[in-house]
């Protein structure tokens, strides 16, 4: 089995890339909710102390301040955990950022299950479902460090609100240096003919791992990486579904309303297809080491492969 090289943690990419962006772009600032040492906004702070804006532990105000900064021509990047960027200040995100299309980059890390043994207060399973339900919001989950860097650079240039879910810990690298992220474009990362797997974010590496395992058992999986959950690349999803006639989505989040929901909606409208959804099956979560949690909740490469086999066996 091919082993993938590990990428840098996406949170580190956040600190470094946004600091690099700020070298050339005086509009770039970071707004932090007292967790810069975790999100690695501290890297940015070191490079640009005057543009590192600490807001303390007060996320509603933090998102509102970002909206105000954006109206003055600045480009704020939000530094906090997914829980405290999406759920705690959701009303502010809605009224001050999404509705008026404020040029704010909501770029939290600690997305998904791998949050450093925190437990259910810190693990957000429904950020995709929530953020894609807001008008005007782009929703992007980069696969690895390479793509995280690209997405952050794209976000700084893009005018409008953007949600980027980043990971805490290193995950395998999916893309080479020649990769080109484009908003709204999904990418086939492996060709196959028996079943189409669709995944997003750091899960794509594990989905590829599952595809390898399946290949060893004679199942050929076609894998589509959907970095941009919104706007969704419907054509690519329809095409990928057409390749095998059978779709399974895989995401580090709830199977309710997230990537799986987006795919089911798109195919229901454009190409009715059987769609199963692998992810958190509407259950409460818990703390634990990354690997243990991925295994428990069925998102490790091995567990994904096992579920795909079981689903296919059901016919």
């Amino acid at each position, binding site marked *: 089995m091919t082993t993938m090289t590990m990428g840098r943690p996406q949170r580190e990419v956040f600190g470094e890339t946004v600091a690099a962006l700020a070298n050339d772009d005086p509009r770039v*600032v970071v707004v932090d909710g007292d967790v810069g040492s975790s999100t690695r906004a501290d890297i940015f702070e070191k490079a640009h102390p*005057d*543009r590192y*804006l*600490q*807001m*303390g532990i*007060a996320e*509603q*105000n*933090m*998102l*509102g*301040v*970002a*909206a*105000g*900064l*954006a*109206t*003055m*021509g*600045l480009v704020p990047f939000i530094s906090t955990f997914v829980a405290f960027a999406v759920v705690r200040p959701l*009303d*502010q995100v*809605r*009224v*001050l950022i999404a*509705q*008026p*299309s404020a040029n704010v980059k909501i770029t939290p890390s600690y997305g998904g299950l791998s949050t450093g043994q925190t437990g259910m207060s810190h693990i957000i399973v429904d950020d995709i479902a929530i953020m894609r339900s807001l008008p005007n919001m782009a929703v992007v989950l980069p696969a690895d460090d390479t793509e995280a860097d690209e997405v952050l650079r794209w976000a700084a240039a893009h005018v409008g609100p953007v949600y980027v879910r980043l990971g805490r810990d290193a995950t395998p690298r999916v893309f080479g240096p020649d990769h080109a992220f484009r908003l709204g474009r999904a990418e086939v990362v492996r060709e196959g003919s028996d079943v189409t797997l669709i995944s997003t974010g750091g899960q794509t590496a594990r989905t590829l791992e599952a595809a390898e395992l399946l290949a060893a058992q004679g199942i050929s999986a076609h894998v589509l990486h959907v970095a941009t959950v919104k706007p969704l690349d419907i054509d690519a999803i329809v095409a990928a579904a057409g390749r095998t006639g059978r779709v399974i989505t895989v995401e580090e989040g709830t199977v309710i309303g997230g990537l799986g929901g987006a795919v089911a909606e798109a195919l229901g409208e454009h190409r009715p297809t059987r769609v199963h959804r692998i992810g958190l099956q509407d259950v409460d979560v818990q703390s634990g080491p990354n690997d243990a949690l991925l295994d428990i909740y069925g998102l490790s490469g091995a567990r994904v492969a096992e579920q795909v086999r079981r689903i296919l066996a059901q016919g």
Partner: protein
Amino acid sequence: MSASVAADPHLDHLREMARRIRVEVIRSVYHAKAGHLGGPLSAADLLAALYFHELRVRPEEPRWEDRDRFILSKGHSSIGLYAAMALRGFFTLEELLTFDGANSRLQGHPDMTRLPGLDMSTGSLGMGISAGMGMALGARLTGRDVRVFVMLGDGECQEGEVWEAAMAAPRYRLDNLVVIVDHNRLQQYGWPGDGPDGRMAPQAPGELVAKWHAFGWRVLHIDGHDMASILDAFEQAAAGDGRPAVIIADTVKGKGVSFMEGRYFWHTRAIKPEEYAQAMRDLGEPDPAADPQAAVAPEAVR
């Protein structure tokens, strides 16, 4: 003192603008058969002082980059703001009659995507101060001489977000930020109590002053219906001392309309024709029944 104040033509002009804001509020809400009344009326003098004295804005160039910013955080008082803006010339008084209607630029709560001259969308209470803090900080970071004014309700000051912003703004020494609290001692419903109209005031007497003070703000406490005091507070706030300033403006909810003053249920309510006539009389307008032309809105005033 009061004689010399009375003789000041600028103050007289501002008082007249406040009166006309109230007239337009009543007219628009009567016409829309919906909308808030108590809050816009209590804020009218403050809005007049802002739009006809304090704010550096250009009605003909509402997106002028170096304008002062104003955020009506208590967004349910939108019609008061719209009336002030119309009188100041941002748009015609006729347009006020589209208030609340479908496809209107004058949304029930301020929607900055629809109306140029609105510096922020509001309506969900507690948010305007955060956005205002971001603007004040942004002005600082971009080296622009822009001042930011935010108006809050006293009920709104129960929202935690207000205190998050209150805690953060002094850290950045944002003395280009001025918060005005329309301290009319009523919210929408609240508790029964011994405040106006048998309701409990959302903030006990003196409490707001103590709170903002404890959070490190420069506190100016005034009569929010006294135009000279309002201008004086603005002047003091402008002489920054490194702290953001808050003006606690004591007001009367429903001010200017006899039967609305201090009555909580006039927070939001449709107006009946007899009530409309009475309100206009209270505001010193010709009786609308006697003078049907009064329904035609006059020109914008500078």
